[in-house]
């Protein structure tokens, strides 16, 4: 090093005055903080938070109870129909009734819902005809044509990939000035998809009226929740997108309803999206083609059986004098009758027309498709 450069370096040391810097105090600051709230109103013993539970009338509680019984009856019958070969592979909702029905009932009929394949309870709560669901699970795609006025998108089979659709629909509602919300259901597994990230990120940036409902049932087939993310909760991911996330006891239908209703109201006030993590449990195998005993213990399942949503609501309603054995017997009987009637309707339905394979590809069949309809003998 030359003398001149040494001198220059020394000069630099003096002007930057390291001694002064040593005395300066610039503490590391916390610039963002978040906390994740957990909401429970009725615990597994049927004990309730008095002030939170007071907003529910007896008829609300009955509606919850009866819809859960109906969905459970639908589910049990679907499982037996599958065993009898009368429908195909089916994804059970056992244990998740509160997460599905509590949230679905918090939306208005004008709102749009985007379910995944394990949402029979959501659809039933929203008045989707059960016979159509049985048709669908029997492999008849006409079952996914939501009747007019039922604003439910067809179930998404590719896990988590439908999250951005709800963002887009909610965005369109906002741009058109409609006071509505879009809700989307996906699993703990689905929350690992890039689609989840992109959908929530857009929702935050454009502040759209969407409600993201993660059905954290602890398993994605054989992969436990801890393998999906190192984060402590799924709810907290919302904070990275600039909006609120909350975890609720997904087996407490009152908590699920309350959190969802608040999120829907907030969305409609123009205050943006919310992520709700419903902390629940898949009590059955992943689907009728799965054997969960290969990857999880009986003890774990038994423990969760004690927390399932009907038990606690029943206990609470009994305490309030709203539940009696006769009442439950009567609604169970009614549920079974209506489910049986729906199955009869489903099975008596005309077989699908092979031309449907082509008919719904485009608004108008292409010239090639018109020829194919004739070649295959599907249209005269």
């Amino acid at each position, binding site marked *: 090093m030359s003398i001149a450069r040494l001198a220059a370096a020394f000069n630099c040391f003096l002007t930057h005055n390291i001694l002064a810097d040593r005395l300066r105090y610039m503490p590391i600051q916390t610039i963002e903080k978040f906390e994740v709230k957990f909401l429970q109103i009725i615990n597994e013993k049927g004990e309730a938070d008095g002030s939170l539970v007071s907003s529910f009338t007896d008829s609300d509680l009955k509606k919850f109870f009866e819809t859960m019984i109906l969905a459970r009856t639908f589910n049990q019958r679907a499982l037996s129909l599958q065993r009898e070969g009368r429908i195909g592979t089916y994804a059970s909702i056992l244990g998740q009734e509160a997460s599905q029905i509590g949230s679905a009932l918090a939306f208005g009929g004008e709102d749009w819902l985007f379910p995944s394949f394990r949402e029979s309870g959501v659809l039933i709560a929203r008045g989707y005809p059960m016979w159509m669901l049985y048709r669908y699970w029997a492999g008849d*795609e006409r079952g996914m044509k939501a009747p007019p006025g039922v604003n439910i998108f067809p179930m998404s089979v590719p896990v988590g*990939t439908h999250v951005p659709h709800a*963002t*887009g629909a909610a965005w*369109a509602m906002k741009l058109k000035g409609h006071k509505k919300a879009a809700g989307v259901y996906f699993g703990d597994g689905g929350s690992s998809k890039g689609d989840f990230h992109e959908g929530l990120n857009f929702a935050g940036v*454009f502040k759209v009226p969407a409600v993201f409902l993660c059905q954290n049932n602890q398993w994605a087939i054989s992969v436990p929740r801890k393998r999906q993310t190192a984060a402590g909760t799924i709810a907290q991911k919302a904070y990275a997108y600039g909006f609120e996330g909350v975890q609720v006891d997904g087996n407490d239908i009152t908590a699920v309803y309350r959190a969802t209703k608040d999120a829907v109201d907030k969305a409609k006030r123009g205050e943006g999206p919310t992520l709700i993590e419903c902390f629940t449990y898949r009590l059955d195998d992943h689907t009728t083609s799965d054997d969960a005993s290969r990857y999880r213990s009986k003890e774990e399942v038994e423990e969760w059986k004690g927390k399932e949503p009907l038990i606690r609501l029943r206990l609470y309603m009994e305490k309030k004098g709203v539940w009696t054995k006769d009442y439950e017997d009567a609604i169970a009987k009614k549920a079974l009758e209506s489910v049986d009637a729906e199955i009869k309707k489903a099975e008596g339905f005309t077989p699908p027309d092979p031309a449907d394979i082509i008919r719904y590809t485009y608004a108008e069949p292409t010239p090639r498709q018109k020829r194919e309809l004739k070649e295959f003998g599907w249209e005269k």
Partner: protein
Amino acid sequence: MGKVNIVAAINQALSQEMERDGDVVLLGEDVGRDGGVFRVTEGLLSKFGPDRVIDTPLSELGIIGAAIGMAAYGLKPVAEIQFMGFIYAGLEQVFSHASRIRSRSRGRYSVPMVIRTPYGIGIKPPELHSESSEALFCHMPGVKVVVPSTPYNAKGLLVSAIRDPDTVIFLEASRLYRSIKADVPDELYSIPLGKADIYQEGKDFTVVSWGTMLHRAAEAAEDFDCEIIDLMTLRPFDEEAVLNSVKKTGRLVIVHEAPRVGGFGAEIAAFAAEEAIGYLKAPVLRVAGPDAVIPMARLEDHYMPSRDRIRKAYETVMSY
């Protein structure tokens, strides 16, 4: 009527269609303030405001996925993917959803949206900015694929694409954006999808091409008496126009920029073999890119079907 390039023609189509139909919204990366990296959407933000010309996060899946929800709800989104090579992140949304929501819901829901993206070799860019992957989309029932070749058809086809009730992939040749100027009517007009254009009439052989390659195929045809078909819509393609021409000439050459194997030329060749074998006097030939990754600038001229390679194919079919 004024002489404009393809960038201006597309801009006109967007602008006029947005004036006509308040449900049309644009979204994509840099489409607003910057007017798009090719300036295709220039001036539209100030004209229509940030609710209709939307700069999005850098998120191809998110752009296409959100556009699906918008379209299903009742808007008519025109999504821009900055370069075709980046659409791959969003393919799942196109393949698993946009193309099949009508079918999945048995007609209850549909996805009337347009995905515009520049394709092909043309601007000496980094890797993945020169892709020609039209065949991927042509294999996917439920979407339509459109490739304009001139300012006139770019405007008219885009208007039809926006009005179409299904998802349309609209591929804009980056090489052609500013290289051709032609008369384009000032007023709004549309050119039907699914119909080819007889770019040049002739009798000795038929050339089928689209986008950038159409022009090269035409230049190479200088002293041949051939019929040149500009396919314009690849899915569904105008089978009748191809068939009539092949029946007339008895020879067929397909020219495209994309790699040969599984390229869309294969579909047209197979179609001719199935429907017109009795009329064919020569083997059907494809002039296409090699079976290789599309190279960067220094090798791209070697990659693209050259005038010589195209002429050789013309001579070969004429030698039968």
